[in-house]
């Protein structure tokens, strides 16, 4: 004797029914909330890669284990995706059948009066007649069904519509988010004031296209950065305003437009937007060899380290023999104290100073390994000088000289194409509308039955909102004493 086997189809059907039950949907929803907590505790690669690296430096073993469970990439991890995909399927499986059911239900008559009305809400007696009660319910736009001695009435069907609207809109929001990550792109580029950004893949410092975004479809706009001004509070050094003036062209042969970009005012090119994300300084330097020939000239972007724009950077001159690198710091307003050594005391260019340590040897730029533009690997190099320069000053070292000519600001432009956001927004607005309808429309039934010459009246508040008893009281009052 063998136990009856559970067929594959019935097993699948069983799993599907379990997955799409309301209980499962609720558990998955709570699980999604719990699953998103670790992302607020551990640093995330997508937001603060530097902090993740610090974590690895401080505790390499622990970090390795955390990384195995994707705790530095929580929101892109397989287990987080699994939860929201299951929730999504569960939501679809729960809401769609419910919509069909509801559409059938909406044309149905309200269910007949229960046998014992006095156990229901708001039970009261009235001496009026059944006909008068029916007239009152009709006048108040209840849907009714009758038997010879009773009436069943219901009102507030819109509540269920709101409920469905809310859940269907959530699906729209989720689809919008998915669409953004698959069909969108985002990238960043540092542009010095005076330079021009042309929107092609090679001009980005980093570029993350979505899975189905083809780089060939980047719109061909250009942005010329004319001026960047930042104002700061003299006392607190807090930033008061950033203003970026640009000249843009939608495509190579369209006309030029002058525009102003601010933190809360991005540029828009069709479905692509360009944001002002960060700013810093690029010292302008000229490097000459011992014969006086110019080997390097131009602005070098430095990376700000604090709110007063103390910055670090690297000037690499591979064309000299031996190769020369300058490991540098830049202070827009130089100051010095015992603890910190050199630092910047204000973010504007009040007393700019460029600190250099000169290294000779191999810059390793020909290895093909991508390098940070702000750092130099000095393991195979030898330090041959150390100096600080103000604007206009030069410093001569063993094999050449460097001149600090001036400073231009740079801005970090973030370019984002986010085709799903409109859908997410529309979904959100509809979700709020649905929520309001489902929370504030009272769906209720009122039953009337003739018993011994009197009317028994009672009801049921389907979504437990208050007001049914008052309504029945009002009904009794308006029916009055007449038959």
């Amino acid at each position: 004797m063998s136990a009856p086997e559970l067929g594959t189809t019935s097993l699948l059907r069983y799993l599907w029914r379990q997955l799409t039950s309301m209980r499962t949907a609720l558990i998955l929803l709570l699980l999604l909330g719990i699953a998103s907590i670790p992302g607020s505790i551990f640093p995330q690669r997508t937001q603060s890669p530097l902090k993740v690296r610090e974590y690895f430096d401080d505790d390499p073993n622990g970090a390795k284990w955390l990384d195995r469970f994707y705790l530095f990439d929580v929101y892109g991890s397989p287990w987080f995706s699994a939860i929201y995909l299951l929730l999504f399927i569960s939501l679809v499986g729960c809401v769609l059948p419910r919509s069909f059911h509801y559409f059938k239900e909406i044309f149905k008559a309200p269910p007949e009066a229960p046998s014992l009305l006095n156990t229901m809400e708001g039970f009261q007696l009235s001496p009026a007649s059944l006909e008068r009660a029916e007239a009152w319910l009709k006048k108040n736009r209840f849907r009714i069904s009758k038997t010879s001695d009773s009436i069943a009435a219901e009102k507030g069907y819109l509540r269920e519509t709101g409920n469905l609207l809310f859940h269907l809109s959530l699906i729209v929001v989720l689809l919008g988010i998915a669409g953004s990550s698959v069909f969108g792109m985002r990238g960043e580029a540092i542009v010095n004031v005076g330079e021009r950004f042309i929107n092609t893949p090679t001009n980005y410092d980093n570029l993350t296209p979505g899975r189905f975004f083809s780089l060939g479809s980047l719109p061909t706009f250009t942005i010329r950065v004319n001026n960047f001004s930042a104002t700061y509070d003299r006392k607190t050094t807090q930033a008061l305003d950033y203003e970026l003036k640009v000249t843009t062209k939608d495509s190579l042969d369209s006309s030029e437009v002058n525009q102003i970009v601010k933190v809360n005012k991005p540029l828009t090119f069709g479905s692509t937007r360009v944001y002002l994300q960060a700013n810093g300084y690029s010292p302008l330097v000229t490097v000459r060899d011992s014969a006086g020939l110019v080997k390097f000239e131009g602005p070098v972007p430095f990376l700000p380290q604090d709110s007063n724009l103390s910055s670090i950077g690297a000037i690499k001159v591979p064309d000299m023999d031996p190769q020369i690198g300058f490991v540098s710091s830049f202070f827009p307003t130089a100051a010095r104290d015992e603890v910190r050594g050199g630092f910047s005391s204000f973010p504007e260019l009040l007393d700019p100073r460029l600190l250099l340590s000169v290294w000779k040897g191999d810059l390793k730029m020909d290895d093909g390994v991508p390098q940070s533009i702000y750092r130099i690997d000095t393991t195979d190099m030898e330090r041959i000088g150390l100096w600080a320069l103000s604007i206009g000053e030069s410093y001569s070292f063993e094999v050449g000289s460097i001149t600090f000519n001036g400073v231009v600001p740079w801005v970090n432009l973030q370019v984002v194409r986010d085709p799903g956001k409109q859908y997410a927004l529309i979904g959100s607005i509809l979700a709020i509308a649905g929520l309001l309808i489902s929370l504030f429309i009272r769906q209720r039934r009122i039953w009337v039955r003739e018993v011994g010459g009197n009317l028994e009246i009672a009801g049921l508040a389907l979504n437990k909102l208050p007001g049914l008893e008052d309504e029945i009281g009002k009904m009794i009052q308006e029916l009055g004493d007449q038959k």
Partner: protein
Amino acid sequence: MSQSDWAYLSNDLIYVALALYALSFLSYTYETAFSLRANKISGDKHLDRSITTKSRKVASIVFLLATASLTLAVIARGISAERIPLGNMYEYSITGAMTFALAYLIIGLKFDLSWLGLPSSILILLILGSAITLLYRPSAPLVPALQSSWLVIHVSSAILSGGIFLLSNTVAGAYLWLDRIERKGERSEFAKRLPSLESLDQLSYRLVAFVFPLWTFAVISGAIWAEAAWGRYWGWDPKETWAFITWILYASYLHARVTAGWKGRKAAWLCLIAGSSYLLNYVYINVWGSGRHTYSGL
């Protein structure tokens, strides 16, 4: 009046409000203590609120005056900075305390909330006290990222939701406390001043149901603003993550009540947990957290 005069006026009014809330708190304590009358012969205590009508009236009038002073302080702060006073955590705290007090007073018009006066005045004293001592920052202009009309829409809806969540938490807390008392036996004379368990349960549900759409709106308006300022509408910033968690917990709470028929103790616990996630988000992420919602100097 100059801008700094307005700032000083605002600070003075905060101190006045603190003093008045303290006075109101004392009157509520007096009311609570002396409305119990001991029987001279048997020594049994029973509740007789008629003897303390006067102190109750004093307490609520002083509470009203304190709230008026607090509201004026918030307005003066706004005038001194020439903007809505929602630029740093000190300002969120005083505005949040104001919405909590106003919600208490307005809802008190419809339901009798005088039993909530004592815990409410303690809470407001704590919020204002920590604001003026720990969080105080001089009135200053906004950092560029906050210079947007979304500041008013997003932050005020978040603060208003927070004030009402806090109120529903207080009610749910009172429910759990009373529930424990009633499970042990009859209510003590002291606890008889509070409404029935049923009506506390209903009240905390209604507050949440009323404010949940507003909280949803606060999250969505934040996303719209983030799209304009930071180039993405959702980035799992710690504050965003916790706002999402709070939303999920309250959504589960509403679901549990409406579809699963939860009420009473279980529902009150869920309500408290959801409200705590809001508070955690407010205090922890602002003070110790990282991410884009932390602005220089709180």
